[in-house]
């Protein structure tokens, strides 16, 4: 190991990697140390901040739950079935990652606005998108679903199809096999997918600011305080959002540990 690391190439790699590490750590480190403990505690006592943070957490979790309900079948379909247009569907799932997020907000509003028949239909059945929780959750689901679907799809793909075949040969139908074999083996990737979806959703700003400036989520509140009162006033809220994201990050690392032992020998 040591002998392999000798020479000029490895130090060069370290040297060239350093700017990226610093780019991540320096601004975040500066942000976290910029606000004193008292300022952080005081910020958390502000009802507006508390509401924005809990709104962000709540709507992000709701988006993750929607992804769990509708993204799981889609992920299984993509992992296990061959069908015409599969590549197209896979591409569509990835699309929200590529589109600028304000564009996502505008697209959703275009469809759900009062000038579109679908928007009018939603309005008639009492569903409002603009400036509502429904709008926020819709946007967050939109931006979070690629993370959920792709993570869970990989999880399903990692389960040997022979386990499902063996289950079926033992008399279990497809639904029973999914419930008794696939789901218990995929729960880790589903949880990871939900965490990734929540983490992505909690930091969403661009699309939310178009669809629902109010009720205010934490990123919108940070933006508002920054534009209205300056950097100093927005920093403590930003620190709390970073801490929440950090907790999600720790959870994500915990659940993304390789679980190859589970399928050893398959």
């Amino acid at each position: 190991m040591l002998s392999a690391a000798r020479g000029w190439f490895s130090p060069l790699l370290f040297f060239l990697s350093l700017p990226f590490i610093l780019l991540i750590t320096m601004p975040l480190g500066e942000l976290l140390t910029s606000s004193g403990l008292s300022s952080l505690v005081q910020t958390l006592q502000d009802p507006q901040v508390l509401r924005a943070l809990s709104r962000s957490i709540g709507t992000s979790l709701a988006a993750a739950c929607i992804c769990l309900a509708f993204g799981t079948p889609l992920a299984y379909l993509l992992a296990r079935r061959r069908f015409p247009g599969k590549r197209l569907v896979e591409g569509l799932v990835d699309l929200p990652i590529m589109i600028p997020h304000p564009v996502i907000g505008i697209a959703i509003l275009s469809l759900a606005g009062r000038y579109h028949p679908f928007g009018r239909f939603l309005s008639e059945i009492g569903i409002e998108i603009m400036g509502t929780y429904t709008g926020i959750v819709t946007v967050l689901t939109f931006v979070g679903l690629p993370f959920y679907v792709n993570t869970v799809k990989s999880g399903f793909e990692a389960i040997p199809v022979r386990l499902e075949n063996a289950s079926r040969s033992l008399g279990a139908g497809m639904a029973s096999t999914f419930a008794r074999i696939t789901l218990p083996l995929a729960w880790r990737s589903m949880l990871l997918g939900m965490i990734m979806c929540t983490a992505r959703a909690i930091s969403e700003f661009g699309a939310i600011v178009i669809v629902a400036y109010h009720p205010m989520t934490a990123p919108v509140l940070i933006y508002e305080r920054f534009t209205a009162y300056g950097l100093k006033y927005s920093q403590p809220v930003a620190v709390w959002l970073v801490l929440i994201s950090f907790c999600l990050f720790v959870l994500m690392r915990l659940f993304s540990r390789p679980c190859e032992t589970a399928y050893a020998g398959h």
Partner: protein
Amino acid sequence: MLAIDSISVHLPGFSLKAVSFSVGPSDIFALLGPTGSGKSVLLEAVAGLLHIQSGRVSLRERDITKLPPESRNLGLVYQDHALFPHMSVQENILYGARYHKISETVRRNRFERLTQRLRLESILRRNPLTLSGGEKQRTALARALMLNPQALLLDEPLSALDQVFRDDIRQMLKGLQRELAIPFILVSHSFSEVLLLANKGAVIRNGRLQQSGTVEDLFERPRSAFVASFVGMKNVFPCTIAGDDIQAGGITLRKQEAPAKGHTHVAVRPEEIELLSRDSSGGENVLQGTIKELDCQGFYYLAAVQIGSLVLQAYWTRQLVRQANLRPGQNVAIEIPARAVHTFAEPA
């Protein structure tokens, strides 16, 4: 009786074409073929896990071609055992019981009998990931047999096992087949394994059945150069038939019965070639040659003997090689018994 009648399966980049054979209740039927030949595809098609485009699969006179796997009552044991890693050995064995109408008493009796028969009592609470290869295989067998299947499908049942477990499982499979009297189909790429385990078999290549019949037939009377080489018949040469004489590469051989006129190839198993003492001469199929190579293969030597323009390969024991003090370059007399000479017409 499990009958496979002209079934075809089309997968992206691979097709199984019009495969037919039948397996009786006293048969262990081996599907032989090189990797990628379609053995496992055929097994999964019979199990209902792959769509059969045409043909028919029937079990005890019942057409099961269109039935889903869970309704076929076929046991399936994979090469890697496919034990459920989130369940204990006991849970694995009992997994399918809830889907079959088995009374509690029958279930308990069968479970006890199987775990005893397959020596699993001491590992019932263990996780499959902690088991040895032999234990995993026995658990997979118990899980399949728990449902009293009408036929058992085994994908490479011995290949993932160490030699020490291999003999054990082989004996167990033979014993189980005798006790249960249901058709066993096993997939294998090793003819020596099949020779010890199966009584009938078929050789498959590129999705097409090359030959089927008794294992002895496949072993001694292959019908193509591919089957001959696959079953270990190392000496396969083009030949011409002139009356009773079989002429190949400048030598003349005789076989027990008169060779058919249209036959184009002669084949001899390497273990059938006998080394004669130096003063032997005359006799039928006695030939003089020179040892080109002697390759030690454990208990045996593989000898390459040049005779005319042919190089014959022969298996001789270490003891024989030592006693006769054989070495490359040495002239030897060999005999190919007439019963060991086999001719066939290579299919177009």
